[in-house]
């Protein structure tokens, strides 16, 4: 099999995975500031994109293993071939897109692990996967991450309400929106340093496997640049469906809750990555939002949506493993198999995009003005109408996320 051809395919797919990773995870940092009107949607995704770009350059220490010990790779274990990585990436990308289409936040790294596990099971047998590591690194953290973040956000929200309570005068809870900008930025930066690095690792290890780099070498500069740009572009394109789910689908978020939720997400993500117990950012962010929802008196959680999200977490690994395994099975036919994989993968990806256009998510800013109006308005008029509607939407978000005490209620409501 011509190795160069496989390596090129893997790199292209890895970059696309990085892109889907970016747009899948914009919501973790930016769903709450968009929901409360702390940031305009476009500004929020642009800020997240810049922070992801910066974050990707900050940390380029590549992991020694692609799968983080889940697959027994390296000396004495199985060799992960580039074709397995390719099959695993297809599984991860397709699962990321399916969950995005359904508006479900699910962990991109779990999708990647799942795809690789499936490919390794088919390509190297049952012994190649260390299932105790799967349990301790994927299954249990999926239960614990939302629990820890949820408790943190619940307590933080309670505290915030208790402290800012002003029975007779106006409270200043609108000020939490300023705080939200900082805590959300922290989450976005942490995401950039963690997640871009994963793709850099995959590409570098593929280059090593293909004999283009020395074992143990750092990622070449072009890999860093390309990965940083891909994740930033993905973040900027914004997974609006997931932003909608986290920003409004789970609970109705007020500014106080948004600040508490993002502060808890940032605290949990940073604590977990520095004290040696890795938790998924996506699951932490969802848990924080649920915790913040429960922390406000009168706040209600849409448990049906929460249930769907939890189901998605638990089927992420097996689902992308199934796709990864299937692709590896086809890939074993040789170069032709890889080509079939690539074509099939591309068909599914295009199909998902077509399906997403059929039921477009409200793109927050790009509000569609009545179609009939479009034909009679000039471009400038149309632009002004859109601008006006986005201003109104922003004002509405701010108004709804504020809570005033009864004092002065009449003035606020008008």
């Amino acid at each position: 099999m011509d190795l160069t051809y496989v390596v090129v395919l893997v790199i292209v797919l890895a970059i696309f995975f990085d892109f889907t990773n970016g747009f899948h995870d914009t919501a973790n940092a930016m769903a709450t500031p968009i929901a409360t009107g702390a940031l305009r949607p476009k500004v929020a995704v642009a800020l997240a994109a810049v922070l992801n770009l910066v974050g990707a350059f900050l940390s380029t220490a590549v992991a020694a293993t692609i799968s983080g010990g889940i697959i027994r790779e390296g000396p004495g274990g199985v060799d992960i071939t580039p074709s397995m990585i390719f099959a695993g990436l297809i599984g991860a990308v397709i699962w990321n897109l399916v969950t995005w289409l359904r508006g479900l936040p699910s962990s991109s790294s779990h999708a990647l692990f799942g795809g690789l596990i499936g490919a390794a099971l088919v390509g190297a047998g049952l012994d190649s996967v260390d299932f105790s590591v799967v349990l301790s690194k994927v299954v249990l953290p999926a239960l614990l991450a939302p629990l820890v973040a949820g408790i943190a956000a619940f307590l933080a929200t309670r505290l915030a309400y208790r402290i800012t309570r002003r029975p007779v005068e106006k409270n200043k809870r609108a000020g939490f929106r300023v705080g939200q900008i900082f805590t959300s930025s922290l989450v976005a930066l942490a995401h950039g340093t963690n997640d871009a690095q994963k793709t850099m690792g995959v590409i570098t290890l593929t280059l090593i496997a293909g004999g283009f780099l020395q074992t143990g070498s750092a990622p070449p500069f072009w890999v860093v640049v390309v990965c940083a740009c891909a994740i930033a572009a993905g973040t900027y394109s914004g997974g609006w469906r997931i932003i909608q789910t986290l920003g409004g689908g789970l609970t109705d978020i007020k500014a106080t809750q948004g600040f508490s939720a993002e502060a808890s997400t940032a605290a949990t993500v940073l604590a977990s990555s520095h004290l040696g117990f890795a938790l998924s950012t996506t699951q932490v962010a969802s848990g924080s939002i649920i915790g913040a929802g429960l922390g406000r008196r009168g706040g209600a959680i849409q448990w049906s949506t929460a249930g769907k999200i939890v189901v998605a977490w638990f089927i992420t690994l097996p689902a992308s493993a199934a796709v990864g395994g299937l692709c590896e099975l086809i890939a074993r036919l040789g170069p032709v198999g890889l080509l079939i994989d690539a074509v099939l993968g591309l068909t599914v990806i295009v199909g998902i995009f077509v399906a997403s256009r059929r039921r477009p998510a409200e793109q927050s800013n790009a509000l569609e003005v009545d179609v009939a109006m479009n034909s009679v308005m000039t471009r400038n008029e149309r632009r002004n109408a859109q601008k006006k509607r986005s201003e109104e939407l922003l004002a509405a978000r701010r108004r709804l996320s504020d809570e005033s005490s009864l004092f002065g209620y009449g003035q606020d409501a008008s």
Partner: protein
Amino acid sequence: MIDWGSFVVVAVVSIGSAAVLVSLFSFGLRLLAGENRRWGARIGAYACFALAALGVLYGIYLIVPALHK
């Protein structure tokens, strides 16, 4: 199999630091609330915001590996 010790540490640190950061910011906002606020309240509020900002800066310090290695 699973390192419960480090999990407990992570849980305690996460919950504690989130509570501290949010409390600081909330106290700052509370001190700013009200019509006829006094000098002291204002200074207290800005002190709270400054401490919260230090917390965020510490977060950045933790994120950037070049700073703590």
